[in-house]
């Protein structure tokens, strides 16, 4: 079973369609995904080699129930133990894994759950990533908020009580340059205690600049750690350069950011291998930068505008739960974020086991917070969403629901120093 990602828009010119089809069907028409483009900083690091060698050696089918048993008996979870917990052999142990995960979560995080919201400020994108709603061949309403519009959105979100914000853009340096994102960070510092960024990967000095503008956390999703699969999904644009993306978190930390977040997009490739690589990416970087705060997300593929058939294939809720429990047991100290891609019932359940952060009041579109938060319709232009969300609870509802689950919702646990 495979997802059918290719969709032709009637709005594309014949020349554009021809190029699109060529990219899709002829690998030789595509640039190398392993070669850096001009301006991309290369850093010396052995983290990538370590992660890849573990991932390439990993055969999930080689693990047995006994390996899983042994892993659960260990006080400290080794890499081998973690591999067993991610394997199909661990599925019958899911309840036990959840119990263990819950214990580790409560030791490190007690009964708290952090709340945040994303703010998309632009959806222009120069890349052709076949599964993404923002991809440059997808016919959607494009938009980039100006600073006044950004501030307006921020006011509405801040009025709802939110104190942590994640600023996002489509991946277009031309439309959303670093300066523009920096100005958005400065505005965000006025309204929020904590500002995170999920933008295209940049160089160390640019991360340093964005940190000075007020951002302190950087999220970059690797999408898939399987380089061949990555090549066949990211057909055009700077995002196609796999190694530059891989080193983004390390550059962000060198640029002075307090924390970094990681993820594979589950459903794109072998999810067990991708989960292994995501966690090891955290593991090896933590050993190198022990002061840094680290967190993992665990998104699954979602439908997008013009392609409502996209789904996470073999990554059901059970498998997702297994991955999250394994993350928690292997890396008890890391934050785990579960986004609004997942249902309310899944999120209510997983926060009691292993997740430490959930989003609320989410829109993945551009400039639509006023209508979504207040119900007030206006004539202002809007940009379309990156993907369809599942859980659309507001901050108030989420706060109440999390309290109802016996958890203490936390809006801020951070000081910018």
């Amino acid at each position, binding site marked *: 079973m495979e997802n059918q990602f290719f969709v032709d828009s009637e709005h594309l010119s014949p020349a554009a369609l021809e190029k699109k089809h060529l990219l899709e069907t002829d690998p030789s028409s595509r640039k190398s995904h392993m070669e850096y483009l001009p301006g991309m900083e290369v850093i010396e690091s052995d983290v990538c080699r370590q992660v890849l060698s573990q991932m390439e050696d990993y055969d999930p089918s080689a693990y047995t129930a006994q390996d899983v048993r042994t892993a659960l008996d260990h006080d400290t979870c080794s890499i081998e133990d973690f591999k067993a917990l991610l394997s199909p052999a661990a599925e019958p142990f899911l309840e036990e894994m959840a119990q263990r995960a819950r214990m580790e979560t*409560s*030791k*490190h*995080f*007690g*009964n*708290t759950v952090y709340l945040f919201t994303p703010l998309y400020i632009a959806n222009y994108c120069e890349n052709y990533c076949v599964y993404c709603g923002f991809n440059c061949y997808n016919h959607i309403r494009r938009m980039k908020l100006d600073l006044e519009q950004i501030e307006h959105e921020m006011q509405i979100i801040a009025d709802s*009580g939110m*104190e942590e914000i994640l600023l996002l853009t489509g991946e277009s340096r031309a439309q959303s340059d670093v300066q523009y994102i920096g100005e958005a960070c400065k505005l965000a510092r006025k309204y929020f*205690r904590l500002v995170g960024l999920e933008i295209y990967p940049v160089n160390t000095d640019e991360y340093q600049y964005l940190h000075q503008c007020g951002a302190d956390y950087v999220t970059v999703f690797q999408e898939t750690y399987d380089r061949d699969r990555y090549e066949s999904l990211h057909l055009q644009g700077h995002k196609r350069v796999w190694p530059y993306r891989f080193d983004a978190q390390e550059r962000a930390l060198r640029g002075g950011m307090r924390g970094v977040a990681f993820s594979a997009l589950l459903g794109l490739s072998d999810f067990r291998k991708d989960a292994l690589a995501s966690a090891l990416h955290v593991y090896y970087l*933590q050993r190198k930068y*022990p*002061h*840094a*705060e*680290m967190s993992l997300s665990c998104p699954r593929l979602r439908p997008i505008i013009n392609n409502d058939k996209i789904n996470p294939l073999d990554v059901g809720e059970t498998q997702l739960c297994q991955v999250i429990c394994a993350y928690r047991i292997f890396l008890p*100290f890391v934050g785990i974020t579960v986004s609004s891609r997942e249902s309310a019932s899944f999120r209510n359940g997983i926060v009691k086991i292993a997740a430490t952060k959930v989003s609320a009041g989410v829109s993945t579109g551009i400039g639509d917070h006023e209508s979504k938060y207040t119900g007030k319709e206006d004539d202002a232009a809007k940009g379309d969403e990156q993907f369809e969300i599942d859980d659309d609870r507001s901050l108030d509802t989420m706060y109440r629901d999390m*309290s109802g689950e*016996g*958890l*203490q919702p*936390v*809006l*801020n*646990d*951070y*000081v910018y*120093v």
Partner: protein
Amino acid sequence: MKNNDKLIIGGHEFQSRFILGSGKYSMKLIEAAIRDAGAEIITLAVRRANTKDQESILDHIPEGVTLLPNTSGARNAQEAVRIARLARELGCGNFIKVEIMRDTKYLLPDNQETIKATEILAKEGFVVMPYMYPDLNAARDMVNAGAATIMPLASPIGSNKGLATREFIQILIDEIDLPIIVDAGIGRPSQACEAMEMGAAAIMANTALATAGDLPLMAAAFRQAIEAGRKAYLSGLGRVLTRGASASDPLTGFLRD
């Protein structure tokens, strides 16, 4: 039992020897926890108090309880000093627990940076309570830097593993003239009791309570354990419990003058 057995920190007197953490659990439980713990000091992460949330932690702390803000989130002395000053601005008083971590996995304190921060903050008039890895030389430096107490860890934060550093904490108790408050890693009332029997001046606990099924009940259990340990220490422990053995026949009985 000695009368008037008070804990004195920076000239302030306390009856209770149980310092309660406020992180990791519901604010609604804080008042009950303080009451049942009989606590007079409660810690507070400045990073958590730095909120516009309608449900501020400060509103849940009864009057008369001393706030002990901590500098959690600081990665060096400079950041700890900044957070301490922010605590003062937020109206949290003059007490400050210096916590400096350069490791997000085990949250082990950095003694060197802690010494530096202690010196700066003591000069600014703070009652400085440094959280530290139990090392005698570092503790002496913190004393000289103006610390009001020394707060060695028993085992890694949140581990509930008890007195993993027992021998080194005993050295601090024996050699340092300030109150030694055992902080982090105490998972059970019995472990708190043991630390008090050793001569610790007080116990700080958070996760052990936060993760208990009945938080106020566990707070009460800790209170009793700490009081029991203190009484045992003051009573002069019987020889079974004291360090080293004592022979029933005197070894020096052969001496003739």
